[in-house]
């Protein structure tokens, strides 16, 4: 039974999105005119690529896609730099602590996503806590403008998604056999070298999984760029949402969605492949 549910609620709507993006913009409310009542034939007969062409003509969309890719990519890198040391420290911690540490990493995840992003608004604004702190200890003379810039978006994405980076890496590191490091050191490796030559390659699966778990959702993020980014921060999720709710241009919104999905297909497939390889390695 879940099969049919999924089929109905997922595949069919997706086909509809595809269809709509090819149809003309309707002016009436509801904006979208042809319904399934008219049958599949009617839907197909109205296929055309007008909306997709529109996307290519207007600069906004191209820029938004590219900007999203850039922001998602940079955020993923930062998340990796922040998350890996934490995961590593967790994996090295005494065994009794690990359950508690794990709980502490997961706890923020159960807290509302929206609230956690909102918290940064108060911190990053010009009169916010971060600026007040930096001014107070004298590092800067004028308040930094962080809120409503891309930087705030980077911070926001890293903050929200870093647990997703930590967990797979931690899982991979925990499975790592410490005697491998000891063997390397026994054979003459320094600590740092052993880390680069052994630990990192062996935790590769976890690193890749973590990166995808951050990159893919970050690409389509809406809340973070809306709250923390400014009008200058272009992300496709935000564009889609605004296209839909502000401009009420559903067909264009659909076209935007379809292209975003196409962009995502390759990372999603790569992610699934990595997961499969991980599972097989475990067996």
């Amino acid at each position, binding site marked *: *039974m*879940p*099969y049919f*549910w*999924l089929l109905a609620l*997922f595949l069919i*709507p*997706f086909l*509809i*999105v595809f269809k*709509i993006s090819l149809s003309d913009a309707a002016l009436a409310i*509801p904006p*979208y005119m042809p*319904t*399934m009542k008219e049958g599949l034939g009617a839907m197909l007969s109205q296929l055309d690529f007008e909306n997709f062409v529109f996307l290519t003509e207007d600069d906004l969309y191209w820029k938004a896609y590219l900007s999203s890719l850039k922001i998602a990519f940079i955020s993923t890198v930062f998340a990796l730099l*922040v998350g890996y040391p*934490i995961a590593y*420290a*967790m994996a*090295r*911690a005494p065994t009794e602590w690990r*359950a*508690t540490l794990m709980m*502490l*990493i997961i*706890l*923020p995840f*159960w*807290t*509302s*996503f929206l*609230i*956690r992003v*909102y*918290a940064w*608004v*108060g911190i990053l604004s010009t*009169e*916010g*806590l971060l600026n007040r702190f930096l001014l107070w200890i004298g590092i800067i003379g004028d308040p930094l403008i962080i809120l409503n810039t891309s930087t705030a978006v980077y911070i926001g994405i890293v*903050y929200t998604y*870093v*647990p997703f980076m930590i967990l797979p890496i931690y899982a991979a590191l925990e499975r790592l056999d410490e005697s491998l490091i000891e063997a390397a050191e026994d054979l003459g490796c320094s600590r740092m070298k052993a880390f680069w030559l052994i630990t990192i390659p062996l935790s590769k699966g976890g690193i890749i999984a973590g990166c*995808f778990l951050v990159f*893919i959702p970050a*690409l*389509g*993020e*809406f*809340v973070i760029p809306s709250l923390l980014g400014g009008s200058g921060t272009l992300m496709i*999720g935000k564009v889609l*949402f605004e296209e*839909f709710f502000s401009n009420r241009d559903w067909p264009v919104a*659909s076209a935007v*969605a379809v292209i*975003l*999905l196409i962009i*995502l297909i390759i990372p*999603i497939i790569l992610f*699934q492949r990595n997961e499969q390889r991980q599972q097989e390695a475990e067996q």
Partner: protein
Amino acid sequence: MNRLSPFNVVSLTFGFAFLYLPMLILVIYSFNKSKLVTVWAGFSTKWYGELFRNEAFLDAAWVTLKVAVISSSIATVLGTMAAYTLVRGGRFFGRTLFSGMIYAPLVMPEVITGLSLLLLFIGIGMDRGVMTIVLAHTTFSMCFVSVVVSSRLATFDRSLEEAALDLGASPFQAFRLVTLPIIAPAVVAGWLLAFTLSLDDLVIASFATGPSATTLPMKIWSSVRLGVSPEINALSSILIGLVSIGVICASLVSKRHTLRIQREERAAERAA
């Protein structure tokens, strides 16, 4: 490894500080008499009072709660069924498609799933409101539940089911009397996950809702768009508090349970 190196200690400290300070700050400022973040005007609980007098918020909270309970319950049933099909089904027709559909919402940006669902609702001529939000949440929650339950099912010892069959249970009885009680913790975890996701969802609810229904996240969103709001701080603190208590309790209970079982096993071996 018994002691952590200083580097690791620093990593952990900074890491957890990074994760928790923003939430801590929210909680502190929810008690700030002044509206502004810049000024600390003294301790006050007046924002909590304002929050509870705000009818719109309370209504939205109630709707959100209802939706979360209903959608997560249905999602848990469907997700468990899906997980069972995936793990035990072997190779059936359309398996790759089914598996893909299950895992897709996990990584798909919410704007896309939201839009698709909305168009479906329009397409079948359904009035949008609380019902459509429930349907929407059930759909994507089901996928998360499925992931949680199927990972537990995959490691489940099948000889237990075989023993049940061998002793005369029908396949359904074996599932009901043996498998289900044993994977129950995973099913409960799935329910909790679905509940949390539903409670917290903004984007999909925005797409799937109608004029009559507003959820709490949507209310929060409309408030914070305009900037910092102390009532939201208060609400946030309440939510953070509830979640923290819940997670810590669950963690303690689980830990005590595991320790007790280990102790009993060891005692049994020694006594034999």
